[in-house]
């Protein structure tokens, strides 16, 4: 069946602030869903609490806006109860990594087939500007008037540390890549995590500017594509090479580096070391975008179903009465 993005839009007025990055992501979600070709009634969009968690109301699918941090657990229940549904979780850096950190890592570890879209604006927006678990050390916010004295989580590190099999990163301003990556995450069987770097125009404006700004974007980010050379730069003149046990950004043709030396991205590699190194790039290195890791592994919800099927195949008991009569039973006669 063919679907259009409008088939996934609800009639609700979108209440995010004008200029918020979430608008762009919503539009990409509509497009990605049209692309995956699943009917709206077979999609369940779950969310926790926070600005991004309002997203289910703007979908014309089944949706459940739940409680703070628990979206991953609720989505796990939805998918496990009915694996035929296409289940998405919309969550933010506070919802997912602070109050919901435990459910997030366990959902990822379990590899339940849900698509997690993690809106990372490094701030609590809905409560009006407190620091989040992804806020940089030292940042001054309403709840850290003298700067934070703690290090942030890097979502990729957490997801891969929890043995995640799919991790991607995108920026809100790159609609094309965001749509493609969301579609890829939907195709992945198992938990997929897409970190979207979004701008909070009110409380953290420009937080990702260093990499999202058109002027620097091609030099400060690299879009990874499976099977392709890791190249970036305005004219694709730069690449990532392995230098000993470290990654290094080089200019092709300089310092003796040729195109041959540039690494080819293998998202399907089961070993996590290179994916982790790529996802931690920043500073002098370009920030990695695109699908960083996409490895096949058994999905939890399928395993649950398979186990039930296998037990049933060897056991004729089908009703409670059957079960009770096979136990230790005695009869009292008239």
């Amino acid at each position, binding site marked *: 069946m063919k679907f259009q993005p409008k088939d996934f839009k*609800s009639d*609700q007025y979108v209440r995010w602030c004008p200029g918020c990055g979430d608008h762009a992501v919503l539009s990409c979600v509509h497009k990605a869903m049209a692309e995956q070709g699943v*009917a*709206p*009634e*077979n999609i*369940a969009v*779950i*969310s926790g*609490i926070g600005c991004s968690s309002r997203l*289910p*109301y703007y*979908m*014309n*699918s*089944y*949706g*459940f*806006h*739940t*409680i703070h941090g*628990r979206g991953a*657990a*609720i*989505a*796990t*229940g*939805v*998918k*496990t*109860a*009915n694996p*035929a*549904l296409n289940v998405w979780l919309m969550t933010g850096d506070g919802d997912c990594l602070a109050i919901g950190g*435990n*459910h997030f890592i*366990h959902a990822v570890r379990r590899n339940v087939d849900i698509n997690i879209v993690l809106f990372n604006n490094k701030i609590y927006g809905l409560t009006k500007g407190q620091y989040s678990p992804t806020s940089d050390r030292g940042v001054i916010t309403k709840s850290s008037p003298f700067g934070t004295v703690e290090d942030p989580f890097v979502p990729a590190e957490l997801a891969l540390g929890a043995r995640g099999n799919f991790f991607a990163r995108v920026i809100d301003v790159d609609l094309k890549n965001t749509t493609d990556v969301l579609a890829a995450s939907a195709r992945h069987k198992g938990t997929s995590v897409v970190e979207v770097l979004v701008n909070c125009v009110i409380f953290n404006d420009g937080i990702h500017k260093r990499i999202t700004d058109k002027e620097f974007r091609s030099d400060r980010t690299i879009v990874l594509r499976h099977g392709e050379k890791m190249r970036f730069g305005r004219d694709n003149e730069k690449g990532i090479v392995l230098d000993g046990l470290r990654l290094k950004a080089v200019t092709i043709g300089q310092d003796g580096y040729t195109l041959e030396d540039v690494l080819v991205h293998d998202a399907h590699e089961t070993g996590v070391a290179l994916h982790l190194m790529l996802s931690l790039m920043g500073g002098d290195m370009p920030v990695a975008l695109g699908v960083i890791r996409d490895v096949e592994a058994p999905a939890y919800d399928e395993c*649950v179903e398979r*186990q*039930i099927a296998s*037990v*049933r195949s060897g*056991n004729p*008991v*089908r*009703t*409670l*009465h059957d*079960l*009770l*009569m096979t*136990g*230790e*039973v*005695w*009869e*009292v*006669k*008239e």
Partner: protein
Amino acid sequence: MAEQTKVVTLEKVVVRFSGDSGDGMQLTGTIFSYLSAILGNDISTFPDFPAEIRAPQGSLSGVSGFQVHLGSRKIFTPGDKADVLVAMNPAALKVNVNYLKPYAIVIVDIDSFQKSDLEKAQFTTDDPFTELGLTGIQLVAAPISTMVKNGLSEFGLDTKSAVRCKNMFALGLVCWLFDRPLDEAMYKLQSKFAKKPPIARANIKALSDGYNYGCNIHASVSTYRIESKKSAPGFYTDINGNKATSYGLIAAAEKAGLQLFLGSYPITPATDILQELAARKELGVKALQFEDEIAGICTAIGAAFAGSLAATSTSGPGLALKSEAIGLAVIAELPLVVIDVQRGGPSTGLPTKSEQTDLLQALYGRNGESPVVVIAASTPTDCFDAAFWAGKLALEHMTPVILLTDSFIANGSSAWRIPNLEAYPEIKPKYVSEYKDEKPWKAYRRDPETFVRYWAVPGTPGFAHRIGGLEKDYDTGSISTEPLNHQKMVATRQAKIDKIAGFIPELEVLGDVRDAELLLIGWGGTYGHLSEALEIMRENGKKVALAHFRFINPLPKNTADVLHRYKKVVVAEQNSGQFANYLRSKVPGFNPDKFNRIKGQPFVVARLVEEFTKLLEA
């Protein structure tokens, strides 16, 4: 051959098996109960074990007990005091000395009464029986360890494994005492140790040796005969409360034609429900352990949204963790069963002991106005019906239902007639396919009679909708902060629960319904003790009645009538008066006497009779 010993025919007898927590007393008690049940005795059991898995050997804190009450007539409780005590060591003797009837038979493994054993149990003399003031008992001091070792000398077992069979020797001896044939016990042991035939054989040998020892000792103790009880015809099995709860949920799912989903997390004393349902894959049950209590309920809420009969199982501390999520199920109006197997609190409290202290938490322990249905099971077998009702009300009224059981009935067992599910009521959720109004359907459109919102399960074309924890508009189902709408939604959610009173049975009064001078009121797991107290008082010529509540919120429709019908009323419960105060808030002018015990132990029937009689005569 044995001399002809004195045979006493009794209506009821209480046997308590007691030993170190590693001595296998739970298994011994379970098998003995089962043997009695299949011979047609009514039974009620009470496993009483320490929170520590293995406390220091021989210590007072490590004593594990299993009490069974059997009789030729209806047995309501595991009994206050024992007619027969098996004490495998001095600590077990000491811990149970206050739970013995005069002239009780006390069987001890005298090999375990060495000086060091006595010291571990903090005896100061070398004569524990005199030290405890035990006179008038019928003592059977059997060298159980030695006889077991000797009896198994040709089995090629190491000493430790051999001595481990001493519980079966004790069981054999008790079987002799009660004239119980050993075949079924042997069969049980064979199936329990099916994968270890040498261990099965050793246990069976010890069992027979114990029985033969009884025949041969020329003991001057009396033996007992308990006549078979006339039970309703049918098939019976021995069941504990946690198992019955699990089966009640399965039955509700079967009746509703739905998949049963349990999201849970291990917690004493509720873990058995998770374990039982996790094993029921052949019935298609999805019972899964998640990362914490909150994930347990949240996965269940997700499953409810997705169209399952969803449940979560826990105890008091876990219920506290789940309260925010219960509120979500209240406002989202999703069907959900929350089972709280109550234990001693607050905080970690007394994890293996029983009380009824979570009632107010169940009724009110959430933010906002968030009414839920609260049901309490009264006996181990009643857990089945109570869980069935919980599933039925949750599904048909789109609401969370909290089912309260407690450690006492969860672990206690009794004989249960396997129910005919066809005799149970239908369970028909109000699906969106039944929506007939002219106005287009929206997520919170309700049945005009019951105020139940129609259930549109994801995957149903044409009914995609969004729900959530934010207040919604009564008509459109969109987010709303409109003042009058909120007032209306609060009132509607409350009215939806209140209306359930029209769908549950009325409160039943037992005993001297018409002319009781004292009405006993109870709820939940104290039913057995209150019933027995009622029976004894009526035998003593008192005019007494009992009203025992299963439905707590909403209360049965005739509650106020019943409460006002009797001059004197006493509410007995294992807390500081939670139900009494709740009833006072619901029934104007109701001012009962209260009987409250919070010791982590079941009521003592004799105390109930004494206190209630005093009240009557006051």
